[in-house]
């Protein structure tokens, strides 16, 4: 039968990665990788460390360019997993990580620690983006939280964006610091998986303070901030929002209106009514947080 599925075991992230690499790299690269995988599976530490470094050189550095179907399958296999920005070398690196014997968490974790501690920039991105598919995720939470202390935006983004790990494993305090820091260093909020599910009063309170402080200093306030504030808008927030709705830029007004619509208090409704056109646009779904994020970071 032409379309017979000979492999009857359910797909795993490792199987998907191996399948994607089959079309994305050449025979030589694939042979090298399979040989390394076998060595890593047998517990050869030097093969892991050298192989992790060499992988992009052996299989390529071009983007994986996964189709919508492939990305859907990735999400099915591991909810929230989004390898849309991955490249070929990174996929090979992730496969090597998935080949580390992990039944005994001690030695497994030690190998990962060594790789994290010696990682250069692209390796750090690969390691952090692999977090959602790695075994023993509970052992890796501190590492992920620590990774966000970077000032290198693309490493921060590897953890915070298109990565379900923070939503699933971060404490409220760690999650809130991630969001707050994103606003400080100019990282988008919209690509954070679970951004609306993990809103909380403590985060809103910090952001309301921050917005008020920025307004007092006559400095611009990141428009995405209001997304987190909307559901918890207090008197101070509503006062700031009213002022920005009246005199802010078009994008700021859209963001405030959207936040007010999410607040669902009578006060918020009343403020929103002062901009019937924006209210109508929101009703029609013409203004979205994704759209506001795109507009804010387009340049």
């Amino acid at each position: 039968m032409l379309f017979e599925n000979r492999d009857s075991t359910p797909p795993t992230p490792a199987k998907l990665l191996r399948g994607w690499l089959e079309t994305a790299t050449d025979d030589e690269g694939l042979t090298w990788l399979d040989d390394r995988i076998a060595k890593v599976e047998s517990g050869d530490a030097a093969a892991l460390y050298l192989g992790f470094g060499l992988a992009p050189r052996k299989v390529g550095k071009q983007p994986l360019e996964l189709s919508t179907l492939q990305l859907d399958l990735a999400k099915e296999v591991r909810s929230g997993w989004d390898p849309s920005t991955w490249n070929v070398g990174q996929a090979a690196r992730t496969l090597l990580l998935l080949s580390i014997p992990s039944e005994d968490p001690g030695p497994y974790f030690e190998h990962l620690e060594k790789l994290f501690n010696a990682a250069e920039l692209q390796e750090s991105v690969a390691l952090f983006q692999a977090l959602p598919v790695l075994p023993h995720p509970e052992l890796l939470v501190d590492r992920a939280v620590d990774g966000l202390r970077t000032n290198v935006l693309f490493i921060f983004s590897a953890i915070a964006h298109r990565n379900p790990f923070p939503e699933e494993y971060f404490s409220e305090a760690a999650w809130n610091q991630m969001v707050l820091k994103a606003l400080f260093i100019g990282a988008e909020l919209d690509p954070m998986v679970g951004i609306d599910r993990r809103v909380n009063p403590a985060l809103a309170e910090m952001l309301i303070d921050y917005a008020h402080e920025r307004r007092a200093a006559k400095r611009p306030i990141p428009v995405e901030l209001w997304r987190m504030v909307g559901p918890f808008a207090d008197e101070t927030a509503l006062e700031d929002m009213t002022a920005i709705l009246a005199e802010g830029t078009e994008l700021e007004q859209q963001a405030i209106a959207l936040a007010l619509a999410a607040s669902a208090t009578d006060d918020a409704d009343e403020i929103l009514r002062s901009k019937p056109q924006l209210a109508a646009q929101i009703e029609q779904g013409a203004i979205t947080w994704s759209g506001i994020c795109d507009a804010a970071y387009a340049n």
Partner: protein
Amino acid sequence: MRYIDPHIHCSSRSTDDYERMAEAGIVAVIEPAFWLGQPRTTAGAFHDYFSSLVGFERFRAGQFGIKHYCTIGLNAKEANNERLAEEVLDMLPLFLAKDNVVAVGEIGFDDMTPAEERALRVQLDLAKELELPVMIHTPHRNKKRGTYRSMDIIEEHGVPPHMVVIDHNNEETCKEVLDRGYWAAFTIYPKTKMGNQRMVEIVKQYGSDRVIIDSSADWGISDPLAVTKTGNLMLGQGIAEEDVQLTCYKNAISAYNQSGQFNETDWLNPEPVDESKLFEGNSVLRGQRPDSSTPQEDGIIT
């Protein structure tokens, strides 16, 4: 004209230096792992140093438009702390296969002790296994014997001379190094090593084939513009532009591109996504842009 400084210790230089280097036409640098001016007391200190060479320093240089590569190795001086040396040699596989590591180095002799020789031999074998070029540091004292002995050992290990750059040459060593088929590098460094004008004379005498010029600029009194100044001096004294390009740019590419990691396209056509991310993600500039209006010094080392 484009320049490469294939031996400079950027970790001990300032952002002002990067700005001036970029302005003077330096498009890429190689930072060899070396000692820090005082001995490290733990293997962890080496670990963090190697990490910064493959990580933060590469990022920092990128902020100023300079492509940064490095070499990884246990230097000769610190090979003499044998307990520490063993730990560092064991650590090298974690770093040697990184994407921007273009050679094993700088390794070689300082006092010419048995411990230094052992570290040299272990690292030559690693270079062979990984098919990486080797950058050899030649000693300040007993230079001629140290240089010749290094080449003897390299040949015993079957590492071909075209895979090896012998650095810090002078008028006494360079003929033998070139005759035996190695790349001969020269460090323009005040008081010790080589001067700008002496370098011009060497190129006049030996030509530009397999001759490489670098600054070794580090935490000492040294000059991160030594390569470009020497290039200008050569042009001013009638050396053909082609020879200046070979000694100050192209030979370094030929030598280190044997690693597969040092391609002209990296800086002529930088990866657009990475570059823009580097600039956005900047933690060095703190919101400022590199200032390209800093005047360039024109003093030369004699």
